[in-house]
């Protein structure tokens, strides 16, 4: 199927680019003075976190569009974006503590941003669990849309909380009102990281979307499909 192949190619490109970023981060980006090499975790942690949040935002948007226009393609996209978002959240949640341990001395703290990103992950899980629990496709699409839509204001509250309540988590140094305060070379590595995760997101979502489409075709023609 054409879409599937396109998705696979994009993913392949993304994975190659990821390797490239790895090389750049290890060998061609300076080591941060106070944190040592662990600071470089930043270059995968932040892009995956941001992509995960955007993935959730898109799930919500797809939900709104589905409810307004009743087009099942939006539901299929939401399902794809949610699964990919879960994967990126997993990366975010595992790399975060890896950074935290050497820098703050603890794997986890219950500071605002950490806690709330934990349940970005839980939100994704809830979305996938909900989809698993509803068999009727129309109902499933509607329920998923509702959950996805509710997720967006939750994310907004997350972001607000971080700004309003000063916590241990590093204050934003790139996306903030004044200019980014990251040295040039590091900024480039970070931006490359964003690029790579974006490409991977697109590749994965296209594949997952195609998968959803193929599965629907199979179910429609009466075939037996296991739920993966």
């Amino acid at each position: 199927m054409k879409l599937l192949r396109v998705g696979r190619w994009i993913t392949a490109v993304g994975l190659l680019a990821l390797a490239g970023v790895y090389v750049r981060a290890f060998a061609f980006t300076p080591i941060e003075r106070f944190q040592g090499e662990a600071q470089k975790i930043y270059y995968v942690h932040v892009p995956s976190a941001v992509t995960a949040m955007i993935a959730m935002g898109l799930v919500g948007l797809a939900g709104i569009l589905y409810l307004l226009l009743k087009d099942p393609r939006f539901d299929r996209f939401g399902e794809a974006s949610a699964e990919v978002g879960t994967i990126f959240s997993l990366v975010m949640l595992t790399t975060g503590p890896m950074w935290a341990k050497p820098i703050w001395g603890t794997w986890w703290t219950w500071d605002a941003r950490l806690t709330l990103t934990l349940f970005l992950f839980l939100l994704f899980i809830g979305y996938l669990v909900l989809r698993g629990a509803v068999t009727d496709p129309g109902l499933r699409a509607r329920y998923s849309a509702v959950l996805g839509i509710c997720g967006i204001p939750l994310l907004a509250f997350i972001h607000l909380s971080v700004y309003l309540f000063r916590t241990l988590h590093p204050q934003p140094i790139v996306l903030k009102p004044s200019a980014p305060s990251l040295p040039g070379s590091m900024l480039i590595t970070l931006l490359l990281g964003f690029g790579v995760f974006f490409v991977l997101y697109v590749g994965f979502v296209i594949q997952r979307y195609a998968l959803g489409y193929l599965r629907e075709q199979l179910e429609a023609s009466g075939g037996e499909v296991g739920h993966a």
Partner: protein
Amino acid sequence: MPEGVPATGGYMIAAYVITAVVLLAYTISLYRRSKKL
């Protein structure tokens, strides 16, 4: 490495490895699931 910079390389390696593992595992998962259909 210059004086006084903490030796935290191990964590970096671990994090990068985990990231690669998760992303590759998902790639494989998508591939295998599409083959099943």
